[in-house]
């Protein structure tokens, strides 16, 4: 066996390294120079690479020797939580992952693939880019969008829509305003140029995301059955190509970066944030979809987290083969990159492609047409080993299987225990809360809470219409409805998670996240078919955090089973934590539904004066966990709102049937802000008012109008259909009540005049804009002030330098 020890002179390295990279690689340089000079790989080295002592022992056992630095780096990133799911896989396996529409098994490919009929499949996935976005919001968010789209088109599907779920701290804080502006700009920059509409999403502002914002991006694509490409490598001697952008030092070790808490030092790790180029990705998309038609492609995988090492390892392990890779053939954008840097770099817009030997020409011609650099860097072998050479010298030799999830990557049992704060939740007494003001004043405050108010300041910065397929632009629904051109169908899609409910009760909150997503899909006239999830939690080594994770997964699993929406894949993001604590447990649900007949599409807005308004589902004496209680009454600890999964299921079934029978004019579910918010939102699009009253008189007023008890939907129907609707409702197994009628534009609440709908709409539309105007005008107040934030600012300048190299 050739020597695996790097022969680079320590002196030479030190001189060069210190001179060139001191500024940019301050974090990585320190351990590296130490390693290279000492050149002794031991448990200290492993710890510096964020491997545990046990993991280091396991690596030595698997390899039968002590790894060299390059090999240890490979294990470090491949066994990071981001790539290996080592602290979550045990519980993820308990989720329902089978169903009649599933075309690939969950986790088998880069994204989930489900049958939508007529010979087409939908490919979808959600992924987090939280840690990069916390440090560098613009590039962090932009590359998050780029990464998730690559997961879709690497399977041969054309992305048709994207969504996102964002969490920030208090919007009154300058830091939050800076993050919101940067993240939104980043998502828009990438998505708008790439040419896929951003059709929906959710945004929440809670103190607990102050240091750790969450940026989850979802992409949905369409593929003809049988035209998908697998992320596998097969066939001895088949050539392996790298295509797309040249490899640089950006995003070094991002996967393991995403697997650590954010601390004051995190800004020092800036190189761990990647830089995105949507134009390059657009070309990559078109070229990749074109090469599939040649029939010469054996397998394809995008390079996201952990770059070349991850794509070579996963493709080889999947095909049960090995690869021989000459790293000196990888096109680079910086000189003198080391083997470990080439392996770990997370430079964006790159793909690894295995092509049938002898058919290279047809593929290369297409990449040339799109002006994309494409270089053969190796070949498929049959020994199961990944062998990386650099200038003729073997730099690393690792068993591919040993690196990947399901292979050699560790799977840990983590301890969990009931969080101590549950006591505070149990102690909450709703009787201690009184409605101290009139309903109208509370309602006015409520609809201006950033979590509830219109997100138009954000959504208008995204191109939501490119593709000319967004059916929600001119007729909004609870989920976003997008025409799947060429398939004769439309898809409904949504991202949902009220994380405060999950915080209050992880099990119930996990169920509610799924239930709300399904409710939104159903209220849009679609049949929910599957789920992708993005599980954002704190540090898994904290037993109380891990308790949240375990119970949230259990709840999600139960709800996914009940709604027959298997989990097709997703992403786990732990370590969303800082010295002040963890974020709210946030298992974001991305759900997709199918509308077979476009006539069944349902919208959420009231249609005309005189229509009758009903509530389907049962009103509850429940103010728990509501925005009203949390934001206006200042109660942090209260139980999750009422939720019963069977009741939810029946309500959804009822709404589906009523839509099918064409009895409804509109359907809009009740969520944050309660019944009054739902009614106002129904009225806003067509500027129609309503005249309503509380019929369930045993319920306290604030609970009735502002409570967030689940499983409730506000529907409207024409006067003509009202009798038939009532007949149907009586025959269905659901509670319902009459609320009132749609008016021309006035709001009448229990006989009291509340004003014109336009006045309410103005408050709702402009609440967020008013807080962000200082950012828009580039005012001083939007500039970060603290020294730590100052460093972040400097970091951004640094980022520009990285891009310019």
């Amino acid at each position, binding site marked *: 066996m050739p020597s695996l020890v790097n022969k680079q002179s320590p002196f030479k390295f030190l001189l060069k390294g210190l001179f060139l990279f001191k500024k940019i690689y301050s974090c990585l340089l320190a351990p590296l120079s130490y390693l290279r000079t000492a050149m002794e790989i031991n448990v200290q080295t492993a710890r510096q690479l964020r491997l545990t002592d046990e993991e280091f022992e396991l690596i030595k056992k698997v390899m039968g020797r002590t790894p060299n630095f390059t090999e240890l780096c490979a294990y470090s990133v491949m066994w990071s939580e981001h790539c290996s799911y080592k602290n979550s896989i045990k519980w993820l396996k308990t989720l329902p992952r089978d169903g009649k529409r599933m075309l690939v098994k969950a986790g088998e490919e880069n994204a989930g693939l489900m049958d939508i009929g007529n010979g087409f499949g939908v490919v979808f996935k959600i992924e987090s880019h939280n840690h990069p976005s916390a440090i560098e919001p613009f590039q962090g968010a932009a590359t998050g969008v780029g990464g998730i789209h690559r997961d879709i088109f690497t399977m041969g599907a054309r992305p048709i829509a994207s969504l996102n779920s964002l969490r920030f701290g208090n919007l009154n804080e300058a830091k939050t305003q800076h993050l919101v502006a940067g993240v939104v700009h980043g998502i828009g920059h990438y998505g708008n140029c790439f040419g896929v509409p951003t059709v929906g999403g959710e945004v929440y502002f809670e103190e607990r995301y102050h240091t750790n914002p969450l940026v989850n991006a979802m992409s949905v694509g369409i593929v003809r059955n049988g035209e998908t490409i697998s992320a596998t490598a097969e066939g001895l001697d088949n050539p392996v190509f790298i295509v797309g952008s040249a490899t640089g030092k950006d995003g070094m070790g991002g996967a393991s970066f995403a697997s650590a808490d954010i601390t004051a030092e995190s800004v020092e790790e800036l190189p761990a944030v990647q830089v995105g180029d949507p134009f390059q990705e657009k070309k990559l998309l078109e070229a990749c979809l074109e090469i599939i038609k040649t029939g010469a492609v054996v397998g394809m995988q995008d390079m996201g987290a952990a770059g070349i090492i991850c794509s070579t390892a996963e493709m080889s392990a999947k095909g049960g083969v090995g690869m021989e890779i000459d790293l000196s053939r990888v096109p680079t954008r910086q000189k003198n990159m080391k083997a470990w840097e080439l392996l770990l770099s997370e430079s964006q817009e790159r793909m690894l492609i295995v092509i049938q030997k002898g058919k290279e020409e047809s593929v290369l011609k297409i990449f040339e047409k799109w002006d994309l650099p494409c270089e053969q860097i190796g070949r498929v072998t049959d020994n199961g080993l990944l062998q990386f050479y650099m200038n003729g010298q073997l730099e690393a030799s690792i068993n591919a299987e040993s690196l990947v999830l399901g292979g050699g990557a560790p799977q840990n049992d983590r301890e969990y225990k009931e969080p101590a704060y549950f006591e505070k939740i149990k102690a909450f007494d709703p009787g201690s809360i009184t409605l101290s003001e009139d309903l109208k004043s509370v309602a006015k405050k409520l609809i201006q809470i950033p979590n509830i108010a219109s997100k138009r300041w954000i959504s208008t910065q995204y191109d939501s*219409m490119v*593709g*000319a397929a967004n059916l929600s632009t*001119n007729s909004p629904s609870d989920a976003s409805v997008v025409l799947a051109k060429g398939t004769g169908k439309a898809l409904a899609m949504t991202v949902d998670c009220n994380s405060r409910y999950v915080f209050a009760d992880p099990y119930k909150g996990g169920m509610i996240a799924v239930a709300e997503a399904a409710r939104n899909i159903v209220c849009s006239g679609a049949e929910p078919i599957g789920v992708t999830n993005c599980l954002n939690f704190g540090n898994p080594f904290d037993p109380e955090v891990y308790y949240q994770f375990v119970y949230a997964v259990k709840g999600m699993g139960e709800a996914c089973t009940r709604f027959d929406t298997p989990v097709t894949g997703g992403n786990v993001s732990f370590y969303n934590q800082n010295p002040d604590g963890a974020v709210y447990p946030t298992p974001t649900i991305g759900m997709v539904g199918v509308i077979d007949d476009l006539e069944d599409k349902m919208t959420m807005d009231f249609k005309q004066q005189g229509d009758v308004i009903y509530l389907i589902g049962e009103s509850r004496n429940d103010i728990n966990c509501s925005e009203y209680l949390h934001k206006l009454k200042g109660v942090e600890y209260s139980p999750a709102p009422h939720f019963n999964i069977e009741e939810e299921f029946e309500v959804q079934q009822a709404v589906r049937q009523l839509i099918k029978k064409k009895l409804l004019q509109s359907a809009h579910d009740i969520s944050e802000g309660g019944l009054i918010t739902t009614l106002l939102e129904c009225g806003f699009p067509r500027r129609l008012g309503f005249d309503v009253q509380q019929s369930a008189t045993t319920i306290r007023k604030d609970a009735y109008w502002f409570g967030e008890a689940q499983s409730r939907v506000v529907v409207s129907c024409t006067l003509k259909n009202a009798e038939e609707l009532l007949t149907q409702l009586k025959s269905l197994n659901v509670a319902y009540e009459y609320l009132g009628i749609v008016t021309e534009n006035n709001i009448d609440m229990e006989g009291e005049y509340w004003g014109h709908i336009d006045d309410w709409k103005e408050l709702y539309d402009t609440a967020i804009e008013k807080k962000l105007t200082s950012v828009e005008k580039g005012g001083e107040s939007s500039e970060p002030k603290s020294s730590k934030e100052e460093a972040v600012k400097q970091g951004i300048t640094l980022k520009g330098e990285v891009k310019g190299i």
Partner: protein
Amino acid sequence: MKFGIVVFPGSNCDRDMQDALQNELGKEVVMLWHKDKDISMFSTDDCIVLPGGFSYGDYLRCGAIARFSPMMESVIDFAKRGGKVLGVCNGFQILCESGLLPGALLPNAQQQFVCKNVYITDDAKTPLMVPVAHGEGRYYAEENVLDELEAAGQVMFRYCDEKGNIEPLSNPNGAMRNIAGIRNKENNVFGMMPHPERAISPALGNIDGIQVFKLLGLN
């Protein structure tokens, strides 16, 4: 009338334009690759469309590089011979960069990308609802150029409110004199920021784009 649609590597409204012209308006459409030069299949009665997108990434100025592409050389020549050319969004930017239309498209006044339905009008009477989606759509030209454009009736569309009133609040990007679209003196080159191809399918609930093509004489 036959249509050619130029596909730059970063075009992303090319297929939308193709769908609109082919499926909704029943036109014959030929897709033209930016590296090619041959447009001999078109007579000057036909129309070449520069669609929206980010032609070559637009990292410099929008459309600044696209004007130098081989296909654009042919298109510029085609326009000079009297052939009809329509530029939408990025296409409008390229036309201004090419000198086929006067003025320039600057970054939006609010310094943000904007995507929403807006109203435009040709005569301040009939407002048409058409979406915009751009970061650099603020039409700018010297005052005397603007005066000339207006005097010669070259301003084709202005941003207005839903009743057709041309007023500042309806201007989504700070364009001078609310200008959304113009034509050249010879009346064969048209540029506009709003996307008529996104407002042409009954399934999307807005067909005002058909009227836009009529007003351009391209129906």
